[in-house]
């Protein structure tokens, strides 16, 4: 009998089965359900529509304010008031509101609300991030979230698994983001990854810290996959120490597990990578877009707003000054990230270099909060999407890349290969 992949094992364990097959539809028990300010009130309204007064477990419904805080206008302020009212009405234990906030996916991992071998869902597409700790993380709509909040259950289709084996060493200025974009450029949205489980493995993944793992799993939704996952190891255990008091039992893929496809990637072929406007799969090596001028630089989001991202930027910008024509906005992914980056001096370095730091939130990423793009803007962003209008104006262009490329490029006001900087 063939073995099972880590994703299949997680679904089997949490649906009370010994094994599952790709294509099967099963009901699973979820460990946690996340909802946030933007869709949370709708989710709770759906819960009431089910005729249910209380959530299945007040400790396991996680509520986060991230898209709308602090409110830049009356509409958002009013939405937030309604959101806070329903969260309090349900006496939710873990409510991360302004002052204790962060981008929901960062909060879910950072505060230990996702655990190896379990399933967590959320009403925001980048819930795939949870795969970084060896959990199955899935984005759902408000109906699915309401059903899970009422019952602790969610239906899932067991995905086919696709494995990427990544070998080689990381160049200091090549990041997990570059690998994500490289995979996007390699695969496109032609059906090979749609609805699949993407498993990242190999020596290069074993060397990768939790921040890079979160970036890789986060972007799998943008590749069209159901989930992204990295098997838990000593880095995972160390990361989770002190973040959770729950016991957990990690799972690994069997050596004879079945994959629809296995791809090998040699990291020596992956350099700094850029997705051109307006398609995420229009991916090129940085060399092909070097010299293109831009006027806005943005680093933050659930993809690249972590301490390690700020660290590499601080290293590049230390003692230097960004180009006068560039507006640079940096948004740490959570209050904890903000504080740590402050204590380590990275924020001082970045501000001295001429960057502006904003309060942790989703910021300009979805085009609805701080730092949106206007007509004619050319944005160099370390976010996750670059479709037309994503960050605001349809007359803006977004180049998507890593924090290292954004930092190096900000010095010159044009796209620059960070490997060419004199140290």
């Amino acid at each position: 009998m063939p073995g099972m992949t880590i994703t299949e094992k997680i679904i089997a364990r949490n649906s009370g089965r010994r094994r599952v097959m790709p294509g099967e539809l099963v009901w699973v028990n979820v460990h946690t359900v996340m909802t946030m300010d933007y869709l949370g009130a709708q989710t709770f309204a759906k819960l009431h529509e089910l005729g249910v007064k209380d959530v299945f477990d007040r400790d396991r419904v996680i509520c986060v304010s991230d898209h709308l805080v602090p409110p830049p206008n009356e509409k958002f302020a009013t939405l937030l008031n309604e959101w806070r009212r329903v969260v309090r009405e349900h006496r939710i234990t873990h409510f991360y509101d302004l002052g204790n906030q962060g981008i929901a996916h960062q909060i879910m991992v950072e505060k230990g609300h996702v655990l190896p071998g379990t399933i967590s869902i959320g009403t925001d597409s980048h819930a795939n991030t949870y795969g970084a700790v060896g959990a199955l993380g899935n984005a759902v709509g408000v109906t699915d979230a309401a059903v899970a909040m009422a019952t602790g259950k969610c239906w899932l289709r067991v995905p086919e698994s696709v494995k990427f084996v990544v070998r080689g060493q990381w160049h200091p200025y090549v990041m997990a983001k570059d690998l994500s974009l490289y995979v996007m450029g390699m695969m496109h949205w032609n059906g090979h990854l749609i609805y699949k489980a993407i498993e990242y493995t190999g020596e290069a993944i074993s060397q990768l810290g939790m921040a890079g793992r979160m970036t890789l799993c986060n972007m799998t939704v943008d590749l069209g996959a159901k989930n992204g996952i990295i098997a838990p190891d000593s880095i995972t255990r160390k990361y989770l120490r002190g973040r959770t008091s729950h016991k957990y039992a990690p799972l690994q893929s069997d050596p004879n597990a079945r994959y629809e496809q296995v791809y090998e990637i040699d990291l020596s072929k992956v350099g700094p990578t850029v997705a051109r406007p307006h398609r995420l799969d229009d991916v090129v090596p940085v060399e092909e877009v070097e010299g293109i001028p831009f006027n806005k630089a943005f680093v933050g989001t659930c993809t690249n707003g972590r301490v390690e991202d700020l660290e590499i930027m601080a290293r590049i910008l230390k003692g230097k000054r960004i180009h006068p024509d560039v507006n640079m906005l940096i948004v740490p992914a959570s209050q904890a990230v903000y504080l740590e980056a402050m204590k380590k001096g990275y924020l001082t370095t970045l501000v001295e270099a001429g960057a502006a730091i904003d309060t942790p939130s989703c910021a300009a990423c979805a085009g609805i909060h701080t730092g949106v793009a206007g007509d004619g803007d050319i944005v160099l962003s370390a976010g996750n999407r670059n479709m037309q209008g994503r960050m605001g104006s349809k007359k803006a262009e977004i180049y998507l890349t890593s924090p290292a490329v954004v930092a190096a490029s900000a010095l010159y006001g044009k796209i620059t290969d960070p490997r060419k900087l004199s140290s």
Partner: protein
Amino acid sequence: MKITGKCWVAPGYVMAYDIITQPFWTSPIDPKENARWVMAGVAEEFNRENGFTSQGYTFIVAGHNFAGGGKSIEHVITGLMGAGIRAVFADSFSRLQFRNAINYGLPFITCKDIVKGCQTGDQLEWDTETGLIRNLTNGNAFQSVPVAPFVAEVAEAGGLMNFIKKRIAEGTIGDLR
């Protein structure tokens, strides 16, 4: 059952972002309301009130990753339903909207290469039992992937909300596995 009607064929990649554009993401989820501006970002001709809905299409035919881009908003599905769409046939669907479609009972039917054999305005006939889709305008026929029993069960209940409500009332939630 056989359903017959006119199809709209996607000229390229259709994103959820363009089916429901950003100003309507926080609108109430309501088929009538969401149908007024559905597809507004997909083509200039639809970018007016009831621009798509007034065309009277019954089916959408598309290529890969229909409704992709990663938006979870359910207005995408209710908008299409409100516009009179009875099924979408495509090479593949974005996962989030595939779920939403099942949860609302709008058939998202996987059908390889159908996009190559249809033009906007063609009359299609879909046999919901056999999965056979016939293009009555040009005589082409396509075999789609059959719908899983669970999907049919949810559609029959009138969507996941009703399906779950009934089970809560019966006390049979624990039986779901």
